[in-house]
């Protein structure tokens, strides 16, 4: 997995205008924009058989995958995306939820989603993932025969509250290794996520 840091953005001063005195300056951390390439999220089974296998866990603050039982924000396996918040949904081999994470899917471009609508945030629950799996119901469309391609739906931005209460937004770009411009489900390896995300490291800040 490669991490490319680019375009570090200057953060806005939340509450700056509401501050009556100017001797009390808040030093905000810059918002982080990252591109993650080829995050591998393999699964076992499938093709009509039960799906199982360990999830690949990812932490937005570090921009790295992790094997930690607690310090993860999202967990990926095949097309399934779980969050570190709520309870187990009931599928095989899913990690225990230890954090305060939640999520929803916003319509927009990565730059047009500028704030978190906290009323829409949902935790994982029994039989209900905050980010649903299934063609057309979550972040991707499965084309079926003959191409069998998994394509991220344009305009679906995944908005997360991380396990420790920060916010992040993410746009999946590709499900295939090296994000080919025109993927071929027969030639290209799948379950390799390429995505852009923006992480807001400041506690309680719901803007990006």
């Amino acid at each position, binding site marked *: 997995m490669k991490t490319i840091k680019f375009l570090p953005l200057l953060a806005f001063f939340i509450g700056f205008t509401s501050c009556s005195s100017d001797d009390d300056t808040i030093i905000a951390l810059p918002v982080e924009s990252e591109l993650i390439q080829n995050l591998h999220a393999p699964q076992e089974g499938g093709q009509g058989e*039960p799906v199982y296998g360990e999830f690949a866990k990812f932490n937005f603050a570090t921009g790295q995958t992790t094997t930690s039982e607690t310090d993860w924000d999202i967990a990926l396996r095949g097309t399934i995306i779980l969050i570190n918040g709520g309870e187990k949904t009931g599928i095989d081999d899913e990690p225990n939820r230890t954090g305060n994470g939640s999520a929803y899917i916003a319509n927009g*471009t990565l730059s047009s989603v500028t704030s978190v609508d906290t009323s829409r945030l949902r935790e994982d629950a029994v039989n209900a993932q905050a980010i649903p799996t299934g063609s057309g119901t979550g972040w991707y469309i499965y084309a079926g025969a003959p191409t069998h391609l998994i394509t991220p739906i344009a305009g679906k931005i995944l908005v997360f509250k991380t396990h420790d209460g920060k916010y992040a937004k993410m746009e999946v770009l590709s499900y295939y290794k090296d994000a080919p411009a025109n993927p071929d489900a027969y030639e290209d390896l799948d379950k390799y996520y390429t995505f852009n995300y923006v992480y807001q490291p400041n506690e309680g800040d719901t803007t990006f």
Partner: protein
Amino acid sequence: MLKRVPHIILLFFVTFGYAQKKVKDSTKVENLEEVLITATRTERQLSSLPLPAQIVSKKEIEAVNSVRLSDILNEQTGLTTVSDFGGGEGIQMQGLDSQYTLILIDGVPLVGRSAGTLDLSRISVGNIKQIEIVKGASSSLYGSEALGGVINIITDTPKHGFNGNVNYRYGTYNTHDASASIAYKKEAFSIDGFFNRFSTSGYDLLEGDFLNTVEPFSNYTFNLKSTYDFSDNTHLLVSGRYFTQNQEYVASEELSGESKIKEWNAHVKLTHKYSEKWSSYFEFYATRYKADEFLNDSEELLFSEGDFNQLLIRPEIRATYNPTKKTSFIGGLGWNHETLERTDFSTKPEFNSPYIYLQYDGNPTEKINIILGARFDAHNEYKSQFSPKGAIRYEINDKISVKGSVGYGFKAPDFRQLYFDFTNSTVGYTVLGYNQVTTSIPELIEEGQILNVVVPITEFEDELRPENSVSFNVGSVYQPISELKFELNIFRNNIQDLIDTRVIANKTNGQNVFSFYNINKVYTQGLEFNGTWKINNYLKFSGGYQLLFARDKDAEDAFKNGDVYARLTPSSPSFQLKKDDYFGLYNRSRHMANTKVFYTIEKWNLNTNLRATYRSKYGLFDTNANGYLDDYDEFVNGYAILDWAVNKIVFKNYNLGIGVDNFLDFTDTQNITSIPGRLFYVKLNIQF
């Protein structure tokens, strides 16, 4: 034909007397009035009809050497054949899909739409007198399926004496079409037999896989029709048709088998005329369509099989009352009984649907013709339907007339949409018919297959509504001189309650359960223009054009609200689309056009024609995964097909033909499976 309808002749002289007189001293132009039955269920002169309608004559079918119905319909303005995933070729009319056009033979419907499309290539045109096409919703007379319109195939009626013909055509890809017909008519009795065999070795557009685009197949059509006149007032018609087709069925390198179709139709009609004003019809129709297929693996062990067996029985009585020569009332009472046995159905469903209809057709004044009609269809499985229709034609003068019609059309949910119970064995998703949900979902939950129910099953307790539409047609016919004719029709179809699939539950294997539901509001609108110029008896030009906008209203709103996004490549970031970026429904071309030239060289007993059909670009898939067809999707490029045919009569009764279909050799191997490229053929027809 004309003998039986004296009032039509009268009308003909009233309407066209002026034009006839004028023509007399110039080049003599034959202008036989065309009569059709589909629009009103009574014989009506085409030119006086308040509805958009069209006739394709036997003469045209023979001149272009068509052998299957799909060939000839594809050349008509505003019609294009579209393939479904099962390979069947249906017709798209006024932008409505093939499942919304009713196909009749001699006024009774064909069945066997296993995936929604009725495959028109299974119908031989060898014994057709004419094809009648009526556009716009016509459920007021015909009930279900007549949303877009009706296509009625009228078979030949025997001439006096003993006669017949044999016809043979051989073309590229080893395509043989052989037919023979024998007819006999004496006094009160007539009998007409027709036989056709069609076979082809198929073709392959994409080399390198183990599949052909079209696998070899052969089919046979048998037709026997007999009439008997008990008296001048009582006529009996008995007609039977049998069709059988065998095709190789290849699914992969290892899996191969065969698919078979068997279809029969039986039609009995007794007509009695009580007086000048009253007559009645007793009609009994039954048809069965049976399709079986199987696949064996490389060790010849059965891998999979499927079957489809549909039966329709329909008795109908009909009465007409003609208080005056120009006024008719027609009323009918009938019963549809339909059953289907099919693989992946848990039950053997049965449809019962009694129906009644009434129609008034009259001329309150010399220049105005009005048609008012309505039909009521009761049904045991879905909401009963009331289908009204009204049409008016006003003759401004003998050169120009205007007409308009409004009608309601519906299509009953098919058996699949109600009773399907199918789980894909390799991928693992499930499709349930609407009526199947309330029993199957609890079963799946019990078996532990359901992770999450997305749509509560209480939503499936109401009946599924039939897809329905209101259609509007406004047009004008302008005939400045008898050799020249222009027709314009503007149409709009507002379609509601379209049946679509959605995910109703998530399965534990990561797949979903789908079912059917009413959702979309769709409209199609546009205009159709036709022009013919018959310079003399030897040279005729015709041209047609259709402009079409076919759109989903919810999609329009989504674009307007800025809810739709796209990517330039599948792996690039999204951007927002604008209202104008919405293209419309799949498989619809904005422009379709055709032009034809027919030329006869009398001294050589030869006729030849050149035809071109064009359809502009269209989209088949949402290639950028936003759920809509937009300007950033990949489109199938527009294309033109040019055909040329020549026929020569030798020794009076022998007709020799040669021709090239698609002589520019257009193919689109990626997107269009129904166009195999350039096709040469020779034809011999012998009359006796």
